[in-house]
């Protein structure tokens, strides 16, 4: 995995990009690639790279060029089908100097132009600089596993894997974009191209952007999820099951084997990662490392299931135990890496997990993200189905009783909690035929947190409204069945915008670990998206076909588990006698006023309530109080660490081991 950063001028009136600024940019993301640093520079463009060496350790350095050094690439990611692509390209006459997948991209672009990206099966964020045409291509993988941010100003372009690298150039202004904040307090994260920062754009997933030499640009959205039911290659559930198993096996195999370093696996204790770990283990000989999070709090802990799976595959299993104090103490570092507010503390234990992986000497892990989106694992899909059924006969008492099947584990007076929940699910039943029905409850609950915004924030939003996600739905959306519609929205708003980024890439990369996601394999996704709804959500049985795939491979005890969403102790982690000082500091009236984003009195009320309730050990925070406290605290941390301090500048003095500098020193000022 790696980090990329660059600066490109779209006219000759700018000085060439500064080598020192490029050094700072790469230094800012050295955690993404601590093994080697490289830079290319000519009069118009500077391309910087921080390498985490995984494929072709000895000769895959970047920046890397084509045969005649006219085309240069910096790339963060892996193209898992690079071996097959290389064979095709060699037949077309290309010659290769290295064994890397990076070089394959360059030659693929030479042969197929911007259409090359649709042939890639993998995860990437890359920049291709054509030094003759003076044009730049930026591209991201389908789901946006790998990040890419852009800043444009008066004929100059900055781009990088993380915003902190763009901010490494002191001339780039830093200010919170309240539209991104408002989207966070509704959709859980800003939705590309909106970001949390004014002037910073996120290149959307599944996109390629072409900048011509005069700076004009063209955007191509080469991929968005589509759901056209077509039973290609199977005519029964049993056949579809076999096919899915085959595709997942292959997807896991190439992700396990196509690396010149050992690849391990996360084990959450759930179905998805258990299956992937098994398939990974079978792909290779020798030792296989697995890694899990254990929680001190029984409510969140899944140790038993993790150990059962580890024993089943006889892996070298390692665990990290996470306490509430751990979460509070790493939280500022977590936010320094997410560069965005978060509404749940779930990324924090994952930060500690990747640290364990790194300490164990492993650079890459398989993980199960994507299964819930691709195969309908979330409760949201089941709830939406019941709500829609209920909406067809709103007066029915029987229809809503289906909710009993969803939550058999409700601890306190199940009837009481159920009765309450029904009142909330009843909202908006009249909207059942409108897009977004599936997500209304989540968005309504989360949006209520906007009452914490300051008057300033609110008035800014009135004249500058954030984008309404539902207005960006593709025309074919209306033709899909309700489950597919819900899945589409979940992929774009939750998976791409929050889960795979804040919880995935940023937490793994914080400790220089590359995540590999078999469920996001291009072939697997295409297949899953072609399945009939009942293969995915069968009645209220979620991930129906995946459970069949896993049968015989994963212990029944794990397959039969009711869905337990991965969660960590939230707001409660920040209170108590061991709570770190920064919590009180950042939630103080002064700190809130300094940043001006939240209403000091309203936050004070929430803060006081949380403090008081935390003192009582068996009290549980409400969902909105949890999200509010964590969201406000993390926003304050973002301002503190990214806007104001941009963290410590030590470690930025990296040495470039690959340095291609075409700027003649005598003809330009540095």
């Amino acid at each position: 995995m790696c980090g990329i950063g660059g600066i490109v001028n779209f006219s000759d009136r700018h000085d060439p990009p500064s080598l020192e600024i490029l050094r700072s940019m790469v230094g800012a993301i050295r955690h993404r690639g601590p093994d080697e640093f490289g830079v290319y520079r000519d009069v118009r463009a500077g391309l910087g790279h921080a390498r985490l060496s995984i494929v072709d350790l000895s000769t895959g350095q970047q920046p890397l060029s084509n045969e005649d050094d006219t085309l240069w690439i910096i790339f963060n990611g892996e193209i898992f089908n690079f071996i097959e692509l290389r064979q095709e390209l060699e037949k077309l006459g290309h010659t290769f100097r290295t064994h890397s997948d990076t070089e394959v991209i360059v030659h693929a672009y030479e042969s197929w132009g911007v259409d090359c990206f649709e042939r890639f099966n993998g995860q990437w964020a890359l920049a291709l600089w054509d030094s003759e045409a003076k044009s730049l291509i930026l591209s991201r993988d389908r789901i946006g596993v790998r990040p890419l941010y852009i800043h444009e100003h008066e004929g100059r372009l900055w781009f990088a894997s993380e915003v902190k690298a763009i901010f490494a150039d002191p001339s780039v202004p830093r200010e919170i974009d309240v539209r991104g904040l408002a989207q966070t307090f509704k959709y859980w994260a800003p939705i590309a191209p909106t970001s949390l920062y004014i002037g910073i754009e996120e290149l959307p997933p599944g996109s390629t952007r072409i900048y011509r030499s005069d700076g004009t640009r063209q955007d191509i959205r080469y991929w968005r999820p589509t759901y056209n039911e077509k039973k290609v290659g199977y005519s029964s559930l049993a056949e579809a099951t076999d096919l899915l198993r085959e595709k997942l096996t292959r997807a896991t195999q190439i992700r396990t084997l196509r690396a010149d370093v050992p690849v391990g696996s996360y084990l959450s204790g759930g179905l998805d990662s258990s299956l992937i770990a098994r398939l990974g283990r079978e792909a290779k000989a020798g030792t296989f490392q697995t890694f899990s999070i254990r929680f001190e709090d029984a409510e969140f802990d899944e140790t038993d299931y993790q150990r059962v799976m580890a024993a089943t595959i006889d892996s070298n299993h390692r665990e990290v135990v996470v306490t509430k104090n751990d979460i509070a103490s790493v939280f500022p570092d977590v936010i320094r890496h997410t560069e965005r507010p978060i509404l749940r503390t779930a990324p924090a234990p994952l930060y500690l997990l990747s640290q364990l992986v790194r300490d164990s000497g492993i650079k890459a892990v398989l993980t199960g993200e994507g299964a819930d989106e691709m195969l309908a694992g979330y409760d949201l899909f089941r709830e939406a189905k019941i709500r829609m059924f209920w909406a067809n006969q709103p007066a029915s008492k029987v229809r809503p009783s289906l909710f009993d099947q969803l939550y058999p584990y409700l601890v306190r007076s199940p009837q009481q909690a159920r009765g309450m929940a029904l009142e909330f699910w009843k909202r908006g039943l009249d909207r059942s035929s409108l897009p977004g029905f599936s997500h209304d409850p989540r968005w309504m609950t989360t949006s209520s947190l906007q009452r914490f915004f300051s008057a300033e924030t609110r008035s800014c939003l009135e004249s500058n409204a954030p984008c309404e996600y539902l207005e960006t739905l593709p025309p074919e959306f209306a033709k899909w069945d309700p489950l597919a519609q819900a899945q589409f929205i979940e992929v774009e708003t939750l998976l791409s915008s929050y889960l795979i980024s804040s919880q995935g890439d940023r937490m793994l990369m914080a400790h220089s670990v590359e995540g590999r996601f078999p469920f996001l394999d291009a072939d697997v996704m295409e297949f899953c998206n072609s399945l009939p709804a009942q293969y995915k959500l069968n009645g209220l049985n979620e991930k129906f076909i995946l459970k069949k795939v896993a049968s015989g491979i994963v212990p029944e005890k794990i397959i039969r588990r009711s869905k337990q969403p991965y969660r960590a102790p939230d707001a409660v982690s920040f209170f108590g006698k061991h709570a770190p000082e920064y919590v009180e500091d950042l939630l103080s009236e002064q700190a809130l006023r300094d940043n001006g984003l939240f209403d000091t009195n309203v936050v004070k009320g929430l803060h006081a309530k949380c403090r008081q309730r935390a003192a009582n050990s068996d009290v549980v925070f409400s969902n909105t109080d949890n999200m509010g406290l964590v969201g406000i605290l993390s926003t304050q941390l973002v301002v503190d660490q990214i806007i104001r301090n941009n963290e410590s500048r030590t470690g930025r003095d990296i040495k470039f081991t690959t340095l291609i500098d075409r700027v003649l020193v005598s003809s330009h000022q540095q």
Partner: protein
Amino acid sequence: MQTEQIRTEVHQFIESNFIFNKKKTLGEDESLIDSGVIDSTGVLELIAFLEQRFQVKFEDNELVAENFDSVNKIIRFIGKKSTGMAA
């Protein structure tokens, strides 16, 4: 207890536990659910408070919006319970 005192205390509780904003006045008939003031987990806090403070008990079948979703509805429910009538 006088109705006006109940009303005052209910307002105070909702303000200091959910809204946190003294500048916002909650309408007597304003829906707590629709206005986003409480979520499904937060409403348990409200019920616990009402039961404890006003010595009333919500039976399972009484946990419907009709009985708790606005200040006026809460007052009506407490009134009925206090006089021993079924809700």
